[in-house]
């Protein structure tokens, strides 16, 4: 086994860190106030290769793979998790298009995403929920040379900052009745609905997509008719869970930095509070969680890079890291005492952001359903 990062990966981390610290930090205050994603960062991120990191070079990407993506998202999130959230969902769309798209679809839709000209969207969740994918209500009906879409999608990341969306809808009943489509925002009947105002990850755009007799060309089906469940599940598992986990991982790293810095500077009883064992134990716990989560996240991404099936590892990385981010952020806030609840201190944002990672990108509980199934598999009676 080799746990060392390569020179390439270290350099990639350093470059994203420098970019995030210099270019994203000045945007955070406005993002927190307005709840808007700074789309002007997409072009500079594209220039660095962040937006197209998993896109193949023939479609304008870099093709660096999933471990590189996890490191990049971790570093973005260390500075601002909302940016990481927007970018990781952007990658999900690239994943879906690249894995299920025709050559013509890839040529048309992946390059603008890789170049940061627009943002990627994968729309599965509906007002009734996202976990029960098969129970969705949105429909798509074949009519001549078009598909007619009706329904609503909600809690959709990048809904209002994108020019086209990967949308899952029902073409028939049952698990084999779902299909995926590429809907452009100027297709007749395609609309954006309300924008949500979240408690955390405020600067990532979340909103509704509305399809009112929306007409899309017949060739805009993504994958096979009836293959929408596979598009949704594979995209959520292989790109969504790992991306969400990387976002939470960045939050944990930031928690450790903020907590350790504050504990070393804050004086109590004539000494820095880091010398108090209660504080030291909290720091030790955050420190350990960071390492556990790094190992989980990097393993899952590495497996994807090796073309290994990693659904269990993705679910483990996602559910554990997002829960750990909440635990660590809470401890970081507590270490700060009353300062921790002031808006001037970063830790309050870390806690709010961490809380949002748990239900996002496939809930933590659904992740645990996957894990329970994997744990019980050897004991299943035939």
């Amino acid at each position, binding site marked *: 086994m080799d746990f060392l990062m390569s*020179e*390439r990966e*270290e*350099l*990639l981390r*350093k*470059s994203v860190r*420098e*970019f995030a610290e210099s270019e994203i930090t000045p945007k955070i205050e406005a993002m927190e106030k307005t709840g808007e994603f700074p789309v002007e960062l997409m072009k*500079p991120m594209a*220039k*660095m*290769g*962040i937006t197209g*990191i998993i896109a193949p070079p023939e479609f304008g990407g*870099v093709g*660096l793979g999933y471990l*590189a993506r996890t490191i990049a998202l971790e570093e973005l999130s260390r500075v601002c998790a909302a940016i990481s959230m927007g970018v990781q969902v952007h990658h999900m769309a690239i994943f879906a298009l690249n894995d299920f798209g025709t050559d013509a679809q890839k040529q048309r839709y992946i390059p603008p995403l890789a170049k940061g000209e627009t943002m990627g969207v994968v729309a599965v969740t509906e007002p009734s929920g996202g976990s029960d994918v098969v129970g969705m209500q949105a429909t798509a009906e074949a009519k001549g040379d078009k598909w007619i879409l009706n329904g609503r999608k909600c809690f959709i990341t990048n809904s209002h900052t994108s020019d086209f969306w990967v949308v899952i809808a029902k073409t028939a009943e049952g698990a084999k009745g779902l299909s995926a489509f590429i809907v452009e925002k100027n297709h007749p009947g395609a609309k954006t609905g309300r924008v949500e105002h979240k408690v955390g990850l405020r600067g990532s755009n979340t909103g509704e997509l509305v399809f009112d007799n929306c007409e899309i060309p017949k060739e805009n089906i993504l994958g096979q008719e009836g293959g929408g469940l596979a598009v949704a599940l594979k995209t959520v598992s292989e790109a969504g869970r790992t991306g969400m986990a990387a976002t939470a991982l960045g939050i944990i790293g930031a928690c450790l930095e903020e907590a350790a810095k504050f504990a070393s500077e804050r004086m109590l009883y004539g000494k820095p509070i880091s010398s108090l064992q209660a504080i030291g134990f909290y720091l030790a716990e955050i420190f350990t969680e960071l390492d556990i989560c790094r190992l989980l996240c990097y393993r899952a991404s590495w497996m994807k890079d090796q073309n290994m099936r990693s659904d269990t590892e993705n679910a483990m990385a996602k559910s554990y890291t997002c829960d750990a981010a909440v635990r660590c952020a809470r401890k970081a806030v507590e270490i700060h005492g009353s300062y921790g609840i002031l808006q001037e201190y970063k830790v309050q944002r870390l806690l709010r952001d961490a809380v949002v990672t748990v239900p996002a990108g496939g809930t933590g509980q659904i992740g645990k359903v996957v894990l329970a199934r994997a744990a019980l598999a050897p004991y299943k009676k035939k």
Partner: protein
Amino acid sequence: MKRVIVCMKPVPDPKAWDRLKTDPVSKTLIREGIPSVVNPLDKHAVEAALEVKDFFGAEVVLLSMAPLDTRPVLREVLAMGVDRAVLLSDKAFAGSDTLATARILAQGIRNIGEFELVLCGNFTLDGSTAQVPSQVAEFLDIPNVMHVCDMKIPKAGHLLLTQKIEQGFVKLEAEPPLLLSFTKEANKPRYISFMEILAAEKREIQIWDNAFLNIDKTLIGLEGSPTQMADLLLQTKQRKAVKLTGKPEEIARELADKIHQLGII
């Protein structure tokens, strides 16, 4: 413009300065275990060189005198878009003062071959002498402009430079060959792109030792350094509490005076 050479010094990471120690005999910094980073001002020199490359297609060569384990730092600069790198590394170079360092760098530049520009950062974060660029220019017998805060090249072979001086700016026109050293206002160094990281893996780092450079050993290293460090002290920062007493208005006045004296307002 055919070739621009950029000098870069790997310096101890400022984030690890609290762990820095000095050799009690040579009074030089003990760098083992301390990560090295690109000297911040040198990045501005690299950016200036890359802008020349972008406009005129010049080859950009990175030159550094440092231990072999600093190669990842050179790789980072290559990933900014530099074409190739030369690392001057030999135990005989250790302990060189600014004069001996400049002599070694100048010999490295001569061996790289013809050039139009040699670009440097104005000073390094660790030594802060700002002597090396001028000394290199002197060894190469070319003009040198320090404190360059703006460089424009309207056409190849004609440079418009702005030099930052204490009370203002000096506008200069110059022709290559030249050595320029840059301030942080000169430009905004580019971020490393992933595409360039991949490209840099294929770019060469040549290692040249003194057997290759063939400099008289009495002119380099500790022996060839006319200046020796007498002592080196690390700056420490401490909080200091001052208690003001008296009537509220007296305390307020004294507090305002102190804040003013400290230059805060």
